[in-house]
């Protein structure tokens, strides 16, 4: 076992959030009164202790938590090393820990003073370090210091067997930031600046659970004067693809909030900003391939999809796939996945197709449509197509019309009827 202790040098409101983000580094996390413990012995193949320290420092910075980090083979020793390290400039080891560290072995998760009397007695007798206490003959402990001393040293001997309290991340992920009145925040850029930190922390917590966001909500609270009609403004954003990148989300947020504030500016200064993760999905656990950019490209592609969909609307950015149908307008479908199989062999189709076929008149050797006239130079066809019987489709006879002006039209008539319809253009 190898335990890392993150000892808070100052109380912080973001401790639980930080612990949730740490789940990304190891599944075994425990929280004490002023410390967070991470079991990293099982992760030695993923990262070294040095890498771990750097990553933890980066996480601490992002959550604005001030803490010291120490590594040891058990929880109490790691806690004691983290707590007492700052007092000395030299690197501490277990034996050098002050005698007061015994209290941490007795109760590493909660601050108590159950051993205060024993420690006081030991101090009075000239014992200064933990090592001094450990070399005392055990048979004499009870008579000199009471049964508490035996228990204390028992905790030290069996520190590695200490059970870990359960830690579970909270179901809702909400990050919030209060804004000082003095800053009078009403513009887009400072709001985005605040949101950046909140989104970053929310995604870190989500990543700790191995998830990506698919829907989130942003709420802005304004000063509630009597003239303010809407003190709370909120935007719910649903993503086409799960996203794990701060930049992608921020760019979507920028578009949405900028558009909203242009139409309806804020009426008073912002007092609070919140980000809530509404929906998430399990992200695929994968390692980046150093030799190809596939994952990066896939993520960039998804980010573009999300931005385009957010701005243009659902279904306006898509890929396409062929569908087995003889009816031209049903021969393809929108999709977000790659699919290229073409099962049926057909004569060449035009590249431009009207969303709805339009009536076109055939007068002698001319086709006339909305004040436009084409003289037919060649008529190829017919190609008879019929759809699915349950859709009650009529048979269509398609013709490829080559005209003297160079345009090529794709027209059809319903079987047995004289009326023609313009369906596409070979451009």
């Amino acid at each position: 076992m190898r335990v890392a202790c993150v000892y808070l040098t100052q109380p912080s409101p973001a401790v639980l959030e930080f612990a949730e983000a740490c789940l990304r580094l190891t599944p075994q996390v425990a929280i004490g009164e002023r410390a967070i413990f991470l079991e990293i012995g099982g992760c030695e193949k993923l990262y070294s202790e040095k890498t771990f320290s750097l990553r933890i420092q980066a996480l601490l910075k992002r959550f604005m938590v001030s803490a010291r980090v120490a590594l040891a083979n058990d929880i109490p020793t790691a806690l004691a090393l983290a707590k007492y390290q700052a007092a000395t400039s030299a690197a501490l080891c277990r034996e050098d820990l002050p005698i007061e560290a015994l209290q941490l072995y007795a109760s590493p998760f909660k601050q108590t003073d159950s051993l205060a009397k024993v420690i006081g007695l030991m101090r009075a007798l000239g014992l200064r370090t933990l090592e001094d206490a450990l070399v005392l003959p055990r048979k004499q402990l009870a008579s000199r210091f009471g049964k508490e001393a035996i228990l204390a040293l028992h905790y030290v001997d069996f520190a590695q067997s200490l059970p870990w309290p359960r830690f579970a991340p909270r179901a809702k992920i909400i990050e919030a930031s209060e804004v000082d009145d003095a800053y009078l925040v009403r513009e887009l850029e400072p709001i985005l600046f605040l949101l950046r930190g909140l989104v970053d922390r929310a995604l870190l917590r989500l990543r700790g659970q191995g998830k990506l966001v698919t829907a989130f909500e942003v709420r802005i609270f304004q000063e509630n004067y009597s003239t303010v009609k809407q003190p709370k403004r909120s935007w719910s954003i649903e993503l086409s693809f799960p996203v794990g990148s701060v930049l992608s989300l921020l760019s979507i947020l920028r578009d949405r909030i900028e558009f909203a504030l242009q139409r309806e500016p804020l009426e008073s200064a912002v007092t609070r900003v919140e980000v809530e993760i509404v929906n998430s999905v399990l992200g695929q656990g994968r390692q980046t391939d150093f030799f190809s950019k596939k994952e990066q490209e896939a993520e960039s592609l998804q980010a573009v999809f999300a931005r385009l969909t957010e701005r243009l609307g659902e279904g306006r950015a898509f890929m396409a796939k062929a569908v087995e149908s003889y009816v031209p307008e049903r021969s393809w479908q929108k999709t977000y996945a790659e699919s290229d199989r073409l099962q049926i062999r057909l004569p060449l189709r035009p590249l431009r197709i009207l969303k709805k076929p339009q009536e076109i008149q055939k007068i002698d050797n001319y086709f006339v449509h909305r004040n436009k006239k084409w003289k037919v130079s060649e008529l190829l066809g017919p190609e008879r197509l019929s759809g699915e019987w349950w859709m009650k489709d009529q048979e269509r006879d398609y013709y490829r019309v080559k005209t003297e002006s160079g345009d090529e039209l794709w027209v059809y008539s319903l079987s047995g009827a004289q009326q023609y319809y313009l369906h596409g253009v070979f451009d």
Partner: protein
Amino acid sequence: MSTKAALSLDELKSLVGIKAPKETFDFSLLHEGVPKGAITEVIGNGKTEFALALLAEHPETRVAWIEESLSVYPFGFLQRNVQLGRVLFVESGTETCWSALQVLKAQVFQIVVLYSESLGLSHLRKIQLAAEKSQAAVLWLTPESRALWPVSLQVQVSRNVSYTPGDEAEGLTGQVLRRRY
């Protein structure tokens, strides 16, 4: 032309800021190739076939196809040997310029095809700068010639009337009307 005049022309070009594209996509219908990092305006009958022919000759590229009102027929792509899995279709409405900038900034698409009549000078300039940065080839399909200065290459496509339907690209010819590099 004197040396002094030639130098002045180069200085003017560098002042305007259009850099000469260094690379091109080889293309059987265009001897000069299609420049990367620049806008190529394509006009004439068969311009969509022309674009498809370029995509078919470069199957490794990822393509963004942006139209104000989408009228392109994806099924026709498959018949012209363009795999649909590599094409992102975007119906942009009035946001054609914005959509083009987003796909270019992503730097995932090597070819961007725009079908729009409403792109103005400022839009094209923004698109040209984004294309230069991402080194993507932008094909701008228009019904008629606009001859705006951010366009590096202007191509007139025409169909050979006597071609046999079946291999559409065979019946096309591309003629360079204007080149700015």
